């Protein structure tokens, strides 16, 4: 009961957030928008990597593909925005399904390298269609309007993203708890055993790729009309690695892990920026070339260090901290309870 109440309060707080934040914190809304869209892609990637065990180092390609499909539908063909976003998801899913077939023959490192190549190739190929994607100069997707409301501000867009996120979280959790989700886990743990149980590798691996590409495509569509500027070069290795980092950091195979990871990694750069700026303004390091460079880019090294620490000491990700804290608390309470019993009484 209290749990449900907490959920309701938490959700109300999230809903109220864009309304109560003052003007000076506009950057926070912007970062939250970005982080939540990235979270959508990460949820999809987590189904593919965390649940089905297929590594993808080129997931930004699906996002970019979705973004350009959505732009093409809305601004070139004239399909309504609310309709073209899911269509972008489905078209990306077809591409993902297609990539699933070569992936059938690959595993582990080889799959990582192949998807890396795929992630590099798609932006290059998109770049060739200049009439559609504008080449490296990019295109400017329009501001979406729904029911007469224009979603031009980050605050308004927040709700659009939130609704999509909630729907997709619901779908992801249902997939994970259904027979399909169990099949993914089975083929992650042992392909041979899964096949022996009658799970078709071809069917479920391609399905995992299609589902995760759908998530990336939808998020890409939202991204295009949020940023109002997209170019094939924006969806490169950097975002793919960010997505991969997010799911590992947050926790592989969980929806909450993808969201926690996306928020953490989305807000971390701003935090380091604030700290760096205040240190820089203090003027203490003005004559140090090294420290000036550290201020310019402390985030990258920090991400790397956190990544290695997580892999070494917290393999289940940040969401596991919560469970660990609870276990620690419970054992402490039990230990305290045992001590309260006088000696000799058993």
């Amino acid at each position: 009961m209290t749990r449900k109440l907490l959920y309701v309060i938490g959700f109300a707080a999230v809903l109220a957030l864009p309304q109560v934040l003052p003007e000076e914190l506009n950057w926070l809304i912007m970062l939250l928008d970005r982080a939540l869209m990235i979270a959508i892609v990460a949820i999809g990637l987590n189904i593919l990597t965390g649940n089905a065990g297929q590594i993808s180092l080129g997931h930004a390609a699906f996002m970019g593909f979705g973004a350009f499909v959505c732009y093409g539908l809305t601004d070139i063909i004239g399909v309504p925005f609310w309709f073209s976003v899911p269509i972008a998801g489905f078209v990306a899913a077809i591409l993902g399904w297609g990539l699933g077939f070569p992936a059938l023959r690959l595993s582990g490192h080889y799959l990582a390298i192949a998807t890396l190549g795929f992630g590099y190739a798609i932006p290059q190929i998109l770049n060739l269609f200049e009439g559609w994607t504008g080449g490296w100069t990019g295109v400017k997707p329009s501001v979406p309007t729904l029911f007469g409301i224009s979603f031009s501000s980050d605050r308004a867009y927040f709700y659009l993203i939130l609704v999509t996120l909630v729907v997709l979280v619901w779908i992801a959790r249902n997939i994970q708890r259904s027979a399909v989700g169990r099949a993914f886990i089975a083929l992650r743990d042992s392909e041979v055993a899964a096949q022996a149980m009658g799970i078709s590798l071809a069917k479920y691996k391609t399905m995992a790729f299609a589902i995760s590409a759908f998530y990336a495509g939808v998020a890409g569509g939202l991204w295009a009309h949020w940023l109002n500027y997209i170019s094939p070069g924006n969806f490169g290795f950097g975002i793919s690695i960010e997505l991969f980092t997010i799911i590992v950091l947050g926790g592989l195979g969980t929806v909450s892990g993808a969201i926690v990871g996306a928020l953490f990694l989305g807000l971390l750069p701003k935090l380091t920026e604030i700290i760096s700026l205040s240190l820089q303004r203090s003027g203490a390091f003005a004559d140090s070339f090294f420290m000036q460079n550290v201020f310019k880019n402390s985030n990258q090294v920090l991400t790397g260090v956190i990544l290695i620490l997580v892999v070494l000491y917290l393999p289940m990700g940040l969401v596991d901290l919560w469970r660990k804290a609870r276990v620690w608390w419970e054992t402490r309470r039990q230990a305290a309870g045992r001590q309260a019993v006088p000696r000799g009484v058993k």
Partner: protein
Amino acid sequence: MILAQQIISGLATGSLYALAALGLVLIFKTSDVVNFAQGEMAMFGTFIAFTLMMKGGVPYWGAFVLALVFAAVFGMLIERIVIRPLSTAPLISVLIATLGLLNIINGVAGWIWGYDPKPFPTGISGAPIRVGGLVFTLPTLLNLAVALVLMLAFFALFKYSLMGIAMRAVAENRLAARLVGVHTNRVLAITWGLGGILAATAGILIAPVTTLSINMMAEMQVKAFTAGVLGGFTSLPGAVVGGLLLGVLENLVGQFIPQLKTPFAFALIVLVLIFRPAGLLGTVQRKKV
């Protein structure tokens, strides 16, 4: 004639890919880790050589050798601190750890040396050699020679030396190797040290072409992966053949269909992995149940 010259300039870029791929393959062959930080190790070693030359006044070859010594120690440190604790962890953890290393090395290099690209000297200079109507530049010949010599040296090391046999034993079955008295940890440390040396060699030879910057290896690294995949990720000669072949093919594609030059390598990775996952010279690895 134009075709022949195109093939030669393809070999020139290809020898760079081959150099970058050698270290990757060496580490993968022995320790079963695809080292995503290999390119960054190359970049860091090259910066060390650069600093020795510019700030320390060390001559080119002296700086080269000292950078290799540094790179060997660096490789061993990475193995000891990051890779060894993960020896029983699942594959994905090791992969992530090397991605983390990529971030750290790249970032720290930016802290130390800044973000502006710098010109880097070549080992030899002089008038290009002309044979018939074909032009060979000296750095190209040097790169080709170094790639081939390193390939042969490491091939011989693997095949005939006690160390090489120990490396193969560790690659085959770590537990069994240990049981027959191979110091597996020492072998892995040495492998990473050699991998570091190969990385720095590649970096120093590549830097004159790409100019020295913290991101000099970003695209080269993907090409090295392609070269490794093409030649077979478990074969050192494969890495060189794959690198040279990739360089030539890429140039020829660029000659006839210019807009496909860049996507070509990436499409090639996917195609090779589909039709011949073991590469040209690699051996098929079957999963044990």
